[in-house]
């Protein structure tokens, strides 16, 4: 199994790269291939099992767009073929139609995801995030663990609760309800006018949620490893500790007295 990490020298903010370290801990056989800005991407030569990109700076977004622009058609083909992508934080904006700051277009994106990223220059939108992921038909809810139970300890295909953090300069705008990744219960969604958060196009998963998303969401991670990466029965690394922290956080975030925006 090969996991390509795009531009870790710049796409590394907010602990996002811990997602890769966690996948490696869960899947010790996985080979992590780091692609730098000036390298030819692995996906240009072969099909990785997962392409990951994390949050970057605003300048980093421009550099990443320019680095990927020559491979835009290859990326389009890879998405169409069902290659797995995981984009966290503002990495998804690189794949968007455009990036707009204070009403002025800063860059044309790769036009692989049909939305416009609009941001403020000096405004931070911070929130906790609580949402839901509904696994597609035919996939068990949490991905079964070695003991045949799903992560929440329940059976069946119930929606998975998602917890995390959003801290962004802006939002994504587009008619994307049919490609929604998560349904938002509390916290900032894709933008203030909608309830969905993130995009799923084929096997491309994008969420604005930052940081160690996979570590914070063991039920989703188990599902992702089983049903997206095809490694069923994989035991998550530090599963007990991760579940304990997850359930504590879920309880906190479900408490109506917990403030959500900062």
């Amino acid at each position, binding site marked *: 199994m090969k996991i390509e990490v795009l531009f870790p*020298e*710049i796409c*590394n*903010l*907010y*602990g996002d*790269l*811990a997602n890769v*370290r*966690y996948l490696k*801990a869960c899947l010790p056989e996985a080979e992590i291939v780091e692609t*730098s*800005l*000036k390298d030819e991407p692995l996906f240009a030569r072969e099909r990785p099992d997962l392409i990951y990109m994390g949050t970057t*700076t*605003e*300048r980093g977004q421009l*550099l990443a767009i320019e680095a990927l622009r020559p491979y835009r058609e290859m990326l389009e083909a890879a998405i169409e073929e069902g290659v797995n992508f995981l984009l966290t934080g503002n990495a998804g904006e690189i794949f968007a139609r455009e990036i707009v700051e204070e009403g002025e277009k800063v860059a044309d994106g790769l036009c692989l995801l049909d939305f416009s990223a609009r941001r403020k220059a*000096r405004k*931070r939108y*911070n929130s*906790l995030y609580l949402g839901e992921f509904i696994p597609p038909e035919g996939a068990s809810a949490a991905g079964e663990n070695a003991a045949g139970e799903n992560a929440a300890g329940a059976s069946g295909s119930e929606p998975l609760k998602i917890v995390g*953090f959003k*801290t962004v*300069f802006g939002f994504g705008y587009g008619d994307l309800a049919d490609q929604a990744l998560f349904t938002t219960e509390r916290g900032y969604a894709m933008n203030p006018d909608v309830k969905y958060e993130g995009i799923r196009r084929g096997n491309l998963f994008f969420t604005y949620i*930052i*940081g*160690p998303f996979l*570590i914070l969401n063991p039920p989703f991670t188990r599902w992702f490893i089983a049903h997206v990466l095809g490694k069923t029965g994989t035991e998550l*690394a*530090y599963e007990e*500790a*991760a579940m*304990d*922290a997850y359930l*504590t*956080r879920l309880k*906190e*975030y479900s408490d109506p007295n*917990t*403030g*959500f*925006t*900062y």
Partner: protein
Amino acid sequence: MKRLRFYLALWAAKLSIIALKITRHNGTNFPGIVALKICPDFLWQVKKPARVIGITGTNGKTTVCNLAIDMFKADGIAVLNNSLGSNIHTGLATSFVLGTGIFGGLKYDTAVLEMDERSAPLTFPAIKPDWLLINNLTRDSIMRNGHPEYIARILTEEMPSATKLLLNGDDLIASSIAPDNERKYFGIKSLDTDVTDCINLVNDLRICPRCSSLLKYTQRRYHHIGKAYCPTCGFKSPQCDYEGQNADLEQMTIEIAERDGSVFCYRLLNDSVFNIYNVVAIVALFRELCYSRERIAELLQKIEIVKSRFDVKELGDFRIIKQMSKDRNSLGTSRAFDYVSGRPGDKELILMMNNLSDSRHWSENVCWLYDADFEFLNRENIKNIVVTGPRAKDYYLRLKMAGIDDSRISFAEHELDAPGKLKLAGKTDIYILYGTDSITLCNQVAARIENEIRERGERA
């Protein structure tokens, strides 16, 4: 009318100080809030000292600021400062309220102000420092500060054109700020602990700011702090005007070379790399203020690092060490971890850097834990790590990710119960790593550790 409003603001703010004293409230920001509420351009209107020195950056600005104030004090000069208040515009306003007489006259010729880097848009238009010292720009609160490039952009956009900059030349992010401003650089030539490859999780300057090629570091202290060049376009770290060399951590001295080739030896106040930089920064600042090398060396003999940030108490076989480790700040935490883990002898740690304010109002964003080098704590001589407080389970998970075995991790739900989880087996240094809003709690924990040591001693 404008002036009348200013005086009303000043008097109301001064009255609020008296009211706070009578009611025994702390409110270090409150008088400034009152002043700015009544007179929004209070900071513009208030008289400024002839010499204003600003100190900003991500880590260590409080320490550098305190050192600068103490240097002046040792030299017999009282300076207007905000060491008792906050470093944002309301705290600065409070300092000016205190430093201004009831008729608007100023009591000081010099100000040394710690200035929050993120608040530059609110402070720099009104208070234009003659000198601004920037000791570093690194990751800080994700929610507030985003990333260092963002802060560098804000500082560059807001920098008063006449402000002279004193920059850490070993920080290519800080040294890039406001390129049109007059500037001097300070740095450290080399240290025995230098590396070339980054051993930290975070390195915020891996690519050349000019051509985006991967940079090569010839010396690296930590993260992106060090000396680098670009093999593609020739970009390189600036030459320092004040450069530390031959740091002697036994004698606690450092030589500082200047551009004219002169070299002078100064006292170090602490052996951490952070604090070596702080001393070099202070020497550079006072040299730029036309102090002689000899006088600076004399003054450095008379000052110490404020104990609220690092304090040691010995109790028999044990030393209780309070080590501030800024919460929500991955780099500051990594530095603290690196320092603590590198000390000789057996250690036990209490990790209580939870942001208590966040815990009260919402729930702390813990992403920074995954930028911080918890891996440094995976060392044999760290015998026990007590995780505690609202985010204890997150700390536990992070320690597991760092490869630390369960046998070396203890859990206490509340901070005050953490001392009971210490092993206290033989000669041990006990470190309490605490955040910026848990100073009082840290002192309480330290007191309980003392009790624990005494009680277990009596039982034995």
